[in-house]
């Protein structure tokens, strides 16, 4: 019985695709196909209309200048430049090709911080060269046009600015990394309370600076990490508050977030050294799941030959 059915089915298949008696294609005549396709055309037309309509209405409720919610993006992440695969900085001092990639990355990133990029007085503003309180520039809309942006001088990064040493210390085996706090619109980072800092940072405390500190990930690496130099505005190892808050891509298209650089001048060569850098602040949080929130990790593996 089953076999007979299958055979019958074979015949039916061909007939199903094109039934010459009834002039049916896939079980429908041309007229029938026309009607059903017209129906679906109208149906999907209406649906698409409703969809686009609702999306438009939804977009109307959203300001272009200020996100409705920042549930996931805050607190900010801490990013390191050069951005490298698996956050592993691995090169050989004698072979410039091995660190070319990192130097390129830094060059590319720091290009926006060149003085030549910051000439437009309409956009850029000379902010105090000492750490200072937040500079607010009005509401989050374009009622007063674009907002001004604080200048950030590349030379403040000293040895890591790339001006004095175009290889950012890599050719001497003293690699620099540049650290930035991820931009978050309207976010005002709060410096940490005095007593919550590690003791070695207490000396450089400033109430208008969000301090950054790097230390070995593992206790036993303490002697391998050597001296760590921090460069930043006014010599402070951190992010000064006058650059905050950020007003967004539309109001501050040329926004320069404050940077700081970290140079490891005495790293042990030919071994892996894992370093973690953290930014400290009252509204900075760290997460086990997101290892780039408020901190980052870099692995150095420098070959001496």
């Amino acid at each position: 019985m089953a076999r007979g059915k299958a055979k019958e089915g074979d015949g039916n298949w061909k007939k199903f695709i094109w039934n010459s008696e009834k002039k049916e294609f896939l079980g429908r005549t041309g007229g029938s196909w026309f009607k059903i396709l017209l129906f679906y055309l109208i149906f999907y037309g209406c649906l698409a209309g409703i969809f686009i309509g609702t999306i438009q209405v939804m977009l109307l409720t959203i300001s272009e200048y200020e996100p409705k919610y920042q549930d996931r993006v805050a607190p900010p992440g801490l990013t390191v430049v050069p951005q490298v695969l698996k956050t592993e900085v691995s090169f050989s001092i004698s072979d410039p090709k091995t660190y070319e990639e990192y130097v390129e990355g830094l060059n590319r990133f720091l290009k926006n911080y060149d003085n030549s990029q910051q000439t437009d007085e309409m956009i850029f503003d000379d902010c105090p060269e000492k750490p200072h309180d937040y500079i607010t520039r009005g509401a989050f809309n374009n009622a007063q046009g674009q907002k001004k942006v604080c200048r950030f001088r590349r030379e403040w990064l000293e040895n890591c600015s790339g001006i004095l040493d175009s290889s950012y210390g890599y050719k001497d085996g003293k690699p620099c990394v540049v650290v930035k706090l991820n931009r978050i619109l309207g976010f005002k980072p709060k410096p940490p309370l005095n007593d919550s800092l590690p003791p070695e940072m207490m000396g450089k405390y400033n109430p208008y600076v969000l301090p950054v500190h790097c230390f070995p990930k593992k206790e036993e690496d303490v002697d391998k990490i050597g001296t760590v130099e921090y460069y930043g505005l006014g010599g402070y190892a951190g992010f000064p508050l006058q650059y905050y808050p950020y007003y967004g891509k539309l109001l501050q298209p040329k926004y320069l977030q404050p940077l700081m650089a970290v140079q490891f001048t005495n790293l042990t060569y030919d071994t892996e050294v894992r370093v973690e850098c953290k930014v400290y602040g009252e509204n900075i949080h760290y997460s086990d799941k997101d290892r780039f929130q408020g901190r980052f990790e870099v692995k150095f593996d420098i070959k001496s030959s």
Partner: protein
Amino acid sequence: SSPQDQYEMYSVEMEKQGNGAMDVKIKKKKTNKAAKKKEKLESMKKEMDVVSGGSRTGVALAGEILLRDGPNELKPPKGTPEYVKFARQLAGGLQCLMWVAAAICLIAFGIQCGQGDLTSADNLYLAIALIAVVVVTGCFGYYQEFKSTNIIASFKNLVPQQATVIRDGDKFQINANQLVVGDLVEIKGGDRVPADIRIITAQGCKVDNSSLTGESEPQTRAPECTHESPLETRNIAFFSTMCLEGTATGIIVNTGDRTIIGRIASLASGVENEKTPIAIEIEHFVDIIAGLAIFFGGTFFVVAMVIGYPFLKAMVFFMAIVVAYVPEGLLATVTVCLSLTAKRLARKNCVVKNLEAVETLGSTSVICSDKTGTLTQNRMTVSHLWFDNQIHTADTTEDQSGQSFDQSSETWRALCKIVSLCNRAFFKSGQDNVPVPKRIVIGDASETALLKFSEITLGNVMEYRERCKKACEIPFNSTNKFQLSIHELEDPRDPRYLLVMKGAPERILERCATIMIKGQELPLDEQWKEAFQTAYMDLGGLGERVLGFCHLYLDPGQFPRGFAFDTEDMNFPTSGLCFAGLISMIDPPRATVPDAVMKCRTAGIRVIMVTGDHPITAKAIAASVGIISEGSETVEDIAARMRIPVEQVNKEARACVVNGGQLKDMETEELVEILKMHPEMVFARTSPQQKLIIVESCQKLGAIVAVTGDGVNDSPALKKADIGVAMGIAGSDAAKNAADMILLDDNFASIVTGVEQGRLIFDNLKKSIAYTLTKNIPELTPYLIYITVSVPLPLGCITILFIELCTDIFPSVSLAYEKAESDIMHLKPRNPRRDRLVNEALAVYSYFQIGAIQSFAGFTDYFTAMAQEGWFPLLCVGLRAQWENDHLQDLQDSYGQEWTFGQRLYQEYTCYTVFFISIEMCQISDVLIRKTRRLSVFQQGFFRNKILVIAIVFQLCLGCFLCYCPGMPNIFNFMPIRFQWWLVPLPYGILIFVYDEIRKLGVRRHPGSWWDKELYY
């Protein structure tokens, strides 16, 4: 003529052919011996030789033979081993797809792990989830099957049968399963024959072979061999038949599975069950789903490869599409729905062995029903009386709730006296508190009927008999055809004796000289004789068993007190008696049956009666329960009415009564033709084997056939039927084993309840499946958009599994509780070839309309959640590669904010959750619209189905739990979402509801229109 002349023995041979169809050959056994039969006979003779060799078994020898032959019991049909059953649950069409998906996940995990990828744990996780899903649903299905097998096990007789055996000259009572070939056993009335035995002595022994041969007449058993065929000879009593009266001793010739019954039983159990229509439907549908899943997956695999995704990624896409498209929870839903109905049916006395049989009953278009016990009460009952030249109707209802007749006449009193006294039946003692119809009576069927009748109308008969002492008695025998007894009178001062007699009406009339009319004895002249004839014919024509009653007060001078009556010489008058009246008896139809048959008729189901009884009785019962409706005539009726020979009747007769003799000479085509011609059919005098032919012929007409049966010999027909219904009380174990359903109360009306439930569950399954299928589209589209447009993934696999197996199961099951939309018992049974469970309209409507709306709802909510967190829709397009780059820790959104990978991942989970909630919200609307297919939901009532309301609340609570339970983000990728994102899909939910109401309105207003054809599922 003896029944043997009317019956031919058939051997039934069934073979399973390669293609799964069952081929049944019915061979008429010719009297000139077929070689095979001879061989059988020889072996049987040989067995007998062993016995007649004189070696009566001793206890020791019996033990040896028991070891050799095994216990004397029917081996239960060999079941499939448990592990095979379980493995089968894991290897269905969809399950195989899931295995493949899980394998792909594992491979992907392995490869990614090798590459040191950070996110690869997701794939391992998904693989484990998929395997868990298959195993858990497998366990569930296995448990369901296991439970229904257990129901059957509970039917097995727990009390072992006892047998009296003579070993080493001593009588023992032992368990019947300890008997061996060669044992000498004793049987007596009321015993079940413990094995196939050859009778060596017998006193008035009669057996009931109906379960074996279908003959309802008791058969005499005696030591003489009367026929060469073991089935027809009188000196063999068969295993498991009942000994009705008398005693006998015999030697066991066959035990256990080697008995005749055992052979038939094993024959039936060797036949695979026919696949139920719902199983075919579901298989068909699963094939399509699996095919489409592979097709979609394959297409997008190719698309992904062409677009330039790496091979591994494309394989993962394939897997994800399969997971999204396969309705994982569907089989569990169907099983639960069916078992709910099975439970509901069990409460109404139908126990369903095979879950799928529930629905089969709903598509049944022909019921071949037994008469005795199913349509009737299976007890002889006095139905009519004729006295004073008038037919009176007695109350035949089971609970004596009917009307009684006028009992004031003198004649009635006289008749009543005869009925009470001329009766050898008596109640078993100690039943005073039992209602009369239920009391156990020792005696044959008609005497029992008369005893109960007089007990009800007169009161305490036993005491009355005590007062009228019996002086002598001649029991009924087939030569006299009467029964006579002489009693003292109740009044001790009256010295007369009263002679009472009952018997075949014409014989009684011969012996009468007078007739009692209104208490007066009138001479029995021609006029009265004619009146008697008319009444006799009338009652006989009703298919009833008629008895005549007469009496005579003996002359006290001639027969003084203490007169020695001699039954041998008959030294008393046996003629010139006074005729009192006629009483007719019938096995009356059950009170609920005519209604049930009527219901079947309105439901478009043919009820065909197949019985071993006389055509006249069968026809009368058929007429009284409505199988032959009022005004329908058979060809014979028309001929009789028009006074022409049968051959000249050219008018079509609605009804037709075919007896076994006619059936025997018919070709199958002829039978099919007759079944086609006459809507009302009764088969009388049929053997159970002929039942099989009738079932087959009905199936040839394309009908879904339900068969009721109780005998062992019915089991092939029960197996062959689309749904076999066995009787719980009267049914033999073999019948119960072969059946798909068991009626605990043996009542036909229960079948009709079953049909109603079956139809309801078909409708409701349709709704459940439509509901379940709908969400596959909103689960699938996110992947399609993800692959083609490269937006961040809107819906993850784990989330999909949660929808399929967690939140949506309860609502889809709750649709099984939905009430019928219209009077389903007024519709024709579904045509299994045309009215599919899942038809094109259902799939298209669910997938391309409701599913499409749900997808749009999901995407609206997705884009809303993305935009409100900073990712505008246009930015999302093409974002996938950067979004999923886990080294990119400062990806800029539409506001220039920089996101780390972890933040983006949580945002993605937020999207999953938002999409999940959108589907849930739309599914709430979906479950509401699925309540009805044609009626407006307002007509059906929103809150009538309480379970559904609870299910919706449950679904919402579960949704909240998944969203807001702490720890969920990292375990199951659910994020706590903002309240307003619950509301975004609401307009689409309302749209679904309104659109479906419009659809239903169109379907109702314009039946047959384009709209109806395209959109009614």
